């Protein structure tokens, strides 16, 4: 199910093959992130959703295939050019990955201090602006170990957009949040995307929540895209994989159990031993 229009794609993934050792993660994947849109990437755990973000960021190198960011092949760039490119990407890691020796304020200021020569007063304005957007202006003096999981992720979100990147990648932004924080976080992703003119990708397995704020969605399984389209198209997709995932059924093409040996035989073997 290749994407139909590729004219306005900020990130273009073509024929991506990747794996760890013998384990195949991506087996010929195609995917586009269109400019100005929020794209959702969903799939069962272990399908390499986080790995894809790292591939886009150039932390891993694909075995085959290409990933282009704004027309540049991410994995053919020199290290200096790659670092330059990464300034145009923001990423929010699953656990926040805040720098634990810096306060909330300094964490958000970190990319600005590293990559700009702005005067302190302007850094302060920018940091407070970003922190206000995630509702944590008042928490700026706290340290990461004093934050709840949800707060840490909101700080990470503020940090991800500190340099006003073109692309923001959210790795499981909703997992483990209470309903209020979840609602806030979702609206925030949408608002940030539209207000700042970003392109966003959300990697998640919170299906209804993620679909509700996405313009386009991909469902991935076994290293391939099994369904793609607008949230409505995906929901009505004919793919068995997609239906099993969206409805949360234990049986289907994706097996819930890790290995398939017979349970009864396993029990008997122990009894006999």
């Amino acid at each position, binding site marked *: 199910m290749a994407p139909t229009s590729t004219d306005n794609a900020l990130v273009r993934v073509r024929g991506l093959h990747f794996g760890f050792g013998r384990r195949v993660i991506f087996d010929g994947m195609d995917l586009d992130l269109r400019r100005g849109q929020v794209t959702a990437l969903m799939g069962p755990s272990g399908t390499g959703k986080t790995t894809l973000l*790292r591939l886009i*960021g150039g*932390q891993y190198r694909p075995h085959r295939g290409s990933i282009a960011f704004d027309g540049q092949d991410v994995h053919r760039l020199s290290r200096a050019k790659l*670092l*330059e490119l*990464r*300034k145009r*990407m923001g*990423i929010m*890691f*699953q*656990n926040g*990955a*805040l*720098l*634990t020796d810096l306060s909330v304020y300094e964490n958000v200021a*970190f*990319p600005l201090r*590293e*990559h700009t020569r702005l005067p302190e007063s302007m850094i302060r304005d920018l940091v407070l602006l970003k922190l206000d957007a995630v509702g944590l202006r008042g928490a700026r003096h706290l340290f990461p170990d004093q934050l709840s999981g949800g707060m840490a992720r909101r700080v990470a979100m503020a*940090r991800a957009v500190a340099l006003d990147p073109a692309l923001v990648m959210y790795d499981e932004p909703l997992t483990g949040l209470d309903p209020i924080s979840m609602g806030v976080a979702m609206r925030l992703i949408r608002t940030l995307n539209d207000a700042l003119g970003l392109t966003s990708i959300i990697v998640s397995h919170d299906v209804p929540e993620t679909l509700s704020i996405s313009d386009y969605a991909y469902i991935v399984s076994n290293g391939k895209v099994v369904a793609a389209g607008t949230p409505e198209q995906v929901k009505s997709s004919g793919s068995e994989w997609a239906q099993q995932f969206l409805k949360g059924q234990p049986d289907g093409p994706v097996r819930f159990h890790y290995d398939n040996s017979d349970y009864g035989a396993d029990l008997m073997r122990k009894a006999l031993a």
Partner: protein
Amino acid sequence: MKKAIDILAEFLRGVGQAQYFLAATLAATPRALAKPHLIAQQIYSVGVLSMVITVISGMFIGMVLGLQGYRTLVGFGAEESLGVFVALVVVRELGPVVTALLFAGRAGSALTAEIGLMRATDQLSAMEMMAVDPMQRVVAPRFFAGFVAMPLLAAIFCVMAIGIAGGYAIGVELLGVDAGSYWSQIRAQVEMDDIWNGVVKSLVFGAVVSWIAVFQGYHAAPNSEGVSRATRNTVVMSSLAILALDFVLTAFMFKID
């Protein structure tokens, strides 16, 4: 046999990796030096915070040397030479070695655990994704700080052991060696060469311990067991490296005039 070859290959792979890592660290150092506040912060955490343990250990080692040295020397009627005895042992040998062992336990293990946890909690990845090179921002300042702090700590150790509270307190104040002979014999017999021996040793030990510590931390498996193993490796490998290198350096510097 095959297993032995595997172990050897694994060991050589580690050594090669560590050398490459050292080269990368040194390459990142000039740019790290451009941010002196980061270096100052690290010198504080590996150096200043290791001072208490260094000072206390120096005092006790000096006091023990005072007692033991006096007991031996007094048999020959040579207790006036206590100062030289303590000074040479401490400056040439115990100062750099004991300080380095303490440094490995106090600062090296902390460096490894800190960097290992930064790896385990994705902080290093996050930096890379923010286009900040962790070699430059995290590794190089810590390595450089260890290299600078170690000789300074060794110097403090020597001063504590020979002068203020160690040999002097026991020899002169307690056992009644003449203060004038204690100091004048040190001035007459301890040469610049002896001090250089100590300085070279502490520079080498500082570099090796910091190298092992940042390498182990950076390559720790990203989980709690990995960090614990890396921390243990740092202490064990640093201690062995210090003692072995001490022998090698002493052998190279050995001369009788």
